[in-house]
Each structure stands twice: as structure tokens, then as C-alpha cells.
């Protein structure tokens, strides 16, 4: 043991000699100084490259999600639409579609201009889907349109992030790269939500956004329905001794329809003699709030570009009709992915609240409007 220990010591001494203990310590001291100098003069630039690398990683992930989304869309069209030709080229063209919003320098009538643009867009999208998938029925056309729109959204997210990444890389602008790096977690969350939406749309599953439509569907089940506005169905349902017009987008295809137009028409049909309007919709929850939590409030709970909300608000103002809102809370990922059990169960709670509101805010014999807002994919009536 002693022999081996002394041998090791002599080996160490010999190995140290070529390096020279002092020389090595000099090298390390020098390295530390160099490190400090680099930190002072190039610290920001190094940080910039670290951020760029992080964004690059997320961008790569976004690209994969986008490609996967495109693949799902093409496969679903092939499976459902039975096209004669390969739909790939058509899908790629669809993914590049854009919509130009109307000019708002002179805001008069801008809502109607926007509505027209959105109508044209919707019709164009549906026509494109019918061309891509000739064997698809109306419900499947709606679902395919939603699938393609989710793929389009993923493509847009990827291209915008890539634009700022390349711009930041080209200009080495700290502010561009820093902002990009900071918003990336939120962007990734949204992209992942759209990715899960793709599968839900392709399979025709109900999504979280359809919570309002589900409430209306539960209320109108078993009653005679009629079409009122574009893709909107309404049923006259007796609730707590009142007459309720319950409306929702026509399902089970993916559709949000024009609930604002339907409410406006119903108010006019009844000469404004509506005791109350109750609007049920899914709403984005704040972090910390529970998914499926139901909350009540005042106002027109209709999301989207604002056209439908505007129409209802105009009619409410004209006839002075009180409006109540009931929302079912969920986060962005839940809103576009298959409906969670908590959200499904919250529909019953929302119905109880509707009944309570009707009892509290109206008299027997009154007429009320109950509107279930949201994408009705996977929800019949």
C-alpha cells in the first residue's frame, strides 16, 4: 500500500512538471479576466444569442406543429371528402388565405362593411372546402372548414413568429428579440391549443367554446325548432310560466352562425316586448379560477369580431330590453379542445341559473330570449 501511494505521488509530481503549477494558475487567472472582459463588452450580445436560440427552439416546435396540422387537414379531407385529385396543393393555397379588414378612418358603417367581408370570407371558405371534399355532407363541410381554419391559424402564428425571429436576427435588435422571447410561452400555449383543436374539429367532437350552445341544446331538446337567421335555430320553450325563445347555431357541424342577427329578428318579431335576454357563452378564465365555474353579469356576451354583439346592442338600445349574461369559464386551450367534463357538467348549473334569473327578473306570461353562443360542433339540438 505504501509503495503504491508513493508511486502515485511521484506520478503526480512528474505530471505536474510539464504544466508547471504556476503557469496553469496563470492560465486560469487570465481566463477569469477574459471572462469578465467578455461579460462587460459582449454580455448583452451573448444574452441576445441565448434568447435567439430559445426562440429558435420554439420556432422549430411551431414549425412541427404547423406541419402536423397541415398533414391532419389533408388526411381528413382525403378520408371524408374522397377527392379525385390530390388535395395537397389546394390545402396549401387555403393556408395562405388572408382577410383585409375594412378601413376605419371614417368609422360610420364600418360594422356592416366588416360583416360583409366576413360573409364573403365564410362563403369562399365553404366553397373551397366543397371543391376539396366533394363527398362531404353539410355537417362535414362545416367541420372540415373549422379544421382548415385551425391549420390556417397555426400557419399564421408560425409565419409571424418566424418574421420577427429573422428580423431580430438580421438587425440584432435587443428589443425585438427580447419581446419575442418574452411572449413565446403564451404563443406556444395558443399554438398547442389550436393543435388539439385540429383533432377535435377533424373528428367532430364538441369543444369547450360550445358550452353556451350546449346549454341552449339542453333547453330546446324535444321542442319544435325553426330556422331564424343564417344557420341559427330557435325553439319556443315554456320555462317557469314564461315563453322562452331558445336559440343556438345549427349543429352538429362546426358553426357559430349569426346569433346577433337572430336575437335582433326575434326582438323585432315581438315588437320589442321582450322582458329579458339571457346570453350564455364560454368565457376565458383568469389563472387561479376553476374550469367550469359559472358566473353571472350584465351585457352582451358574444365574442368574435364584434358584429353580432353590435347588432344586439343596437336592438337593446332601441327597445330598452334588459340583458343578462351567464358565462362558463375556461382557458384558451379548453375553449378549442374537446369539451372537458367540468364544462359539460357546468351546463346544468347554467340552466339552474337561467331559471332563477327568469323567476327573479321577469313575471309569469312574459317573453324571454335565451341565446346559447359558441361553436356548436358535435352538439345537435
Amino acid at each position, binding site marked *: 500500500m505504501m509503495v503504491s501511494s508513493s508511486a*502515485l*505521488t511521484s506520478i*503526480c*509530481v512528474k*505530471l*505536474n512538471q510539464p*504544466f508547471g*503549477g504556476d503557469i*496553469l*494558475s496563470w492560465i*486560469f487567472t487570465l*481566463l477569469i479576466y477574459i471572462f469578465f472582459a467578455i461579460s462587460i463588452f459582449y454580455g448583452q450580445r451573448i444574452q441576445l444569442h441565448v434568447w435567439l436560440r430559445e426562440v*429558435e*427552439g420554439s*420556432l*422549430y*416546435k411551431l*414549425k*412541427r*406543429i404547423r406541419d*402536423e*396540422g397541415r398533414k*391532419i387537414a389533408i388526411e381528413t379531407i382525403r378520408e371524408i371528402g374522397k377527392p379525385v385529385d390530390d388535395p395537397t396543393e389546394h390545402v396549401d393555397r387555403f393556408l395562405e388565405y388572408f382577410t383585409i379588414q375594412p378601413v376605419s378612418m371614417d368609422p360610420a358603417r364600418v360594422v356592416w362593411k366588416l360583416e360583409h367581408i366576413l360573409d364573403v370570407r365564410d362563403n369562399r371558405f365553404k366553397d373551397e372546402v366543397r371543391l376539396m371534399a366533394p363527398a362531404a355532407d353539410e355537417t362535414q363541410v362545416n367541420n372540415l372548414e373549422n379544421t382548415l381554419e385551425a391549420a390556417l391559424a397555426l400557419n399564421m402564428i408560425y409565419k409571424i413568429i*418566424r418574421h420577427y*425571429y*429573422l428580423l431580430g436576427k438580421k438587425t440584432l435588435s435587443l428589443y425585438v428579440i427580447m419581446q419575442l422571447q418574452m411572449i413565446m410561452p403564451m404563443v406556444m400555449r395558443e399554438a398547442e391549443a389550436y*393543435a*388539439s383543436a*385540429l*383533432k377535435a374539429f377533424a*373528428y*367532430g*367532437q*364538441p369543444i369547450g367554446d360550445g358550452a353556451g350552445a*350546449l346549454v341552449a*341544446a339542453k333547453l330546446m*331538446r324535444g321542442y319544435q325548432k325553426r330556422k331564424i337567421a343564417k344557420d341559427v335555430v330557435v325553439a319556443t320553450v315554456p320555462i317557469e310560466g314564461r315563453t322562452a325563445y331558445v336559440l343556438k347555431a345549427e*349543429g*352538429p357541424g362546426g358553426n357559430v352562425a349569426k346569433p346577433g342577427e337572430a336575437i335582433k329578428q326575434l326582438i323585432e318579431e315581438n315588437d320589442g316586448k321582450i322582458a329579458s335576454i339571457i346570453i350564455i357563452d364560454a368565457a376565458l378564465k383568469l389563472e387561479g379560477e376553476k374550469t367550469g365555474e359559472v358566473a353571472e353579469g350584465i351585457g352582451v356576451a358574444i365574442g368574435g369580431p364584434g358584429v353580432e354583439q353590435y347588432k344586439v346592442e343596437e336592438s337593446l338600445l332601441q327597445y330598452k330590453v334588459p340583458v343578462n349574461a351567464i358565462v362558463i369559464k375556461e382557458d384558451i386551450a379548453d375553449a378549442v*379542445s*374537446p*369539451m*372537458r*367534463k*367540468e*364544462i*359539460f357538467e357546468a351546463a346544468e348549473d347554467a340552466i339552474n341559473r337561467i331559471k332563477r334569473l327568469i323567476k327573479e327578473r321577469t313575471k309569469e306570461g312574459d317573453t324571454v330570449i335565451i341565446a346559447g353562443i359558441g361553436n356548436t360542433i*358535435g*352538439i*345537435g*339540438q
Partner: protein
Amino acid sequence: MKRSSQVKISTAFLVVIFLTLILSFVAIYWAISEVILGENYGGALSWLLIGFIGLSIATYMLYQTRRRIRISIRPQPVMTTLICEKCGFKNLREFRRGDYVFKETDEKCPKCNENMYIAAIYREVKEKV
């Protein structure tokens, strides 16, 4: 941005990792030899610290280069609940394409042989505490 499934690593980056690794090993070796020779224990501790910091930086950088991003959009398990309107029998099965809420199905109730309807379609999520 050109990037295949295999992440491309620059030569300069590999050289930096290699140099850091060598210097770290030298520092650790230097620390051990000082302990064995019994010359300067304080210095040995400093070398050991520098060596391990360098080693961890190099290992981290190597790990970063090896990291692969795998993405796949998997369908989430969605359940369909069927109910018999006559006897209230409930049947839970996996979602099938074509199912929708309130659809009158051809599936028969095992109790009273009536057609069942789809009462619910949802997915269950286990919340992380």
C-alpha cells in the same frame, strides 16, 4: 431557418465544449494532485470548484446539443355517454366519429332493447396539484 429532425451543431461550438472539458479535467487533476502532494489544500479546493463548474457547463452545453424536439398531435381520450330514455340505462364508451350530443343512435339498450341517445361527450382531465 433550415433545420432537419437532426439538430445541426457548429464546429466552433463543439471546439468550445471540448476546450472547456479539457480545462475542467486539468483543474480537477490539479486539485487531486495538490491534495496527494499535500502542498496547498486551499488551492486544491479552488481548482476543484473551477473544475466542476467547467465540467457542468460543458455537460449542459452538450446536453443542449443532444436535445431533440418531438411533436405529435395525439387525439385526447374522449368518452361518449349513451342513455336509454325509457329505463335510464347509462352506457359509457369511447367516442366514435359521427357521434354528437343528442344523436339518436341505433345502439340498443341491453335492458329494454330501446334505441339509446347520446347524452354527453367529454374528456376527463386529471389536474396536476
